[in-house]
């Protein structure tokens, strides 16, 4: 049970860490081969690029979970906590709606391209499967937004969502579960 909980809490984080690690390994391989043989490994470049894109879009969910997204918040500085919380909720509702729209739009486009089947240059995989990471990231991000509200509400720490420190981008490292 404990293991499943850990797996769930750090799901996107671990997937992204793996993606960045694969990216670094592929790039290392590419540099190594170029130094030794002087020729490039085309597929390694493509894999690393895809890993990067996936890490970016899945990383938005990690950013939401750890309250680390970059915002402009100076205007809230002298407001009481409950007013800031209200603004934060309005902002999150808009973001939530946009994510649903983005997911809907991109799923449609991805489904269409999967049918048409555009192949990537060296790996010969369908690019649409990589493009699908944009809507997946949006859905996961919405999930983590809801989750952070639920957790902070349950623990009575909703104020933490709008703490000056969090808003200034110095997010807590521990994640929001515990």
């Amino acid at each position, binding site marked *: 049970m404990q293991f499943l909980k850990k797996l769930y809490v750090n799901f996107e*984080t671990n997937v*992204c*860490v793996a993606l*960045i*690690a694969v*990216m*670094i390994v592929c*790039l*290392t391989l590419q*540099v190594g081969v*170029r130094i030794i043989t002087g020729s490039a490994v085309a597929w390694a*470049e493509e894999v*690393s*690029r895809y890993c*990067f*894109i996936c*890490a*970016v*879009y*899945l*990383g*938005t*969910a*990690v*950013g939401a979970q*750890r309250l*680390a*997204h*970059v*915002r*402009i*918040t*100076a*205007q*809230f*500085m002298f407001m009481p906590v409950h007013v800031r919380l209200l*603004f*934060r909720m*309005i*902002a999150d509702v*808009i*973001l939530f709606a*946009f994510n649903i*729209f*983005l997911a809907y*739009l*991109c799923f449609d*486009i991805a489904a269409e391209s999967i049918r048409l089947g555009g192949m990537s240059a060296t790996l010969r995989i369908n690019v649409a499967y990589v*493009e699908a990471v*944009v809507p997946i990231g949006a859905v996961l991000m919405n999930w983590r937004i809801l989750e952070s509200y639920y957790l902070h509400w349950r623990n009575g720490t909703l104020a933490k969502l709008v703490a000056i*420190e969090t*808003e*200034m*981008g*110095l*997010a807590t*490292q521990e994640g929001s579960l515990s």
Partner: protein
Amino acid sequence: MSVLTVLLISMAVLFLLGLPIYAALAIAATLSLATSDILPLAVIQSSFYDGMNIFPLLAIPCFIVAGALMERGNITSQIINVVRILVGRIYGGIGITTILACAVFASITGSATSTVAAIGAIMIPAMMRNGYSPAYAGACSASGGTIGILIPPSNPMIIYAIMANVSISGMFAAGFIPGLIMAAALAVVAYVLARRKGFKADESIGAFSFIEFLKVCKASFFSLATVVIVLGSIYSGLATPVEASIVAVVWALFVGVVINRALSWRDIYDSLVEGVMLCGTITIIVGASTLFGKILTYEEAPVNLANFMIEMTRNKYAIMLLIVAMLYLLGMFVETLAMVIIVTPVLVPVLVELNIDLIHFGIIMVMANEVGLLTPPMGVNLFVASRLTGTSVERLSLTVLPYIGVMTLVILLVVFCPTIATFMPRLLGF
């Protein structure tokens, strides 16, 4: 309402509501697309994907991971030891050591925040132990840390070069001399302030002995070599920026695991998480701003802005000073990389029209961003230093003023004397 009005007003409202910057840009763009028929909605998906499908961008998370590994793998503390033995015995020596150590660390990392975090974590306690005031220690580390983005490698430079379509290596080459000037200028401020406040030299070091210096150098050999390896791979032209970032990661792993035996699996995992966080919260802005920029370009906004500015004055120095003033103002509210991503595409047509060297301007932009890191309410370096010293951000924002003043002088110097920035790239043929 015109498309542009919808775009700019909704952007302003969304920024004020406190949406993440990337989302504000994307939603504003979506609204203006939905209320007009200039471009199909599918452009949203393609910008998000293609905007990110740029190979040189991969260097940014790699440099972040490398910096995190170096910090955890004791490379930082060994670099500090070497600098300390050189300048520690000067009056206010620990402050000067801090600034110069920041400059050395800047040449292996691309981020200002990681520079102040890495150097400050060691130097701030050292200063406070030796009777330096917490405010002095914080201001000194916060401003020294800003050199992190001026001396290459530098994440804002990578973003700027991609956005302005100039050579990344050219930008890296251009940052070196201004970086040294900036470090020297800040060290002078640290010295003068220490003199006035009566903060003494580092008493733990005795008279300079060359033998001891060599001993320390030998003990820190592999950490010092990091500088040579990272800068060397950039300047020799042997490696592209992405390759240089990979060299930095591999070398940091090698020194941290094999030589210093300081890196655990946990440390490596945490370093990778730092890279992930940057991807998910900052690099994503590139995708959103690609979309935003497409609409701006479609509506010819940058060209109109260029014409508007040229109508005011054709003097390129006046325009550059105007832009620097604007960047100072924006820097108070917007995070560094986000600002470069948003502002660059808008400004480039103005610069091209006025025949301003894009690399020269890029350096000025990065330097103006350094000041942005020190000005509240959004001054990230102040937050890190405030956390490390336990001094309030308000107090620190006052004590960094002398540093900001000197930084402004250096910026003016570079504005009016472009050779400082363009000499190295010309020499190296970028």
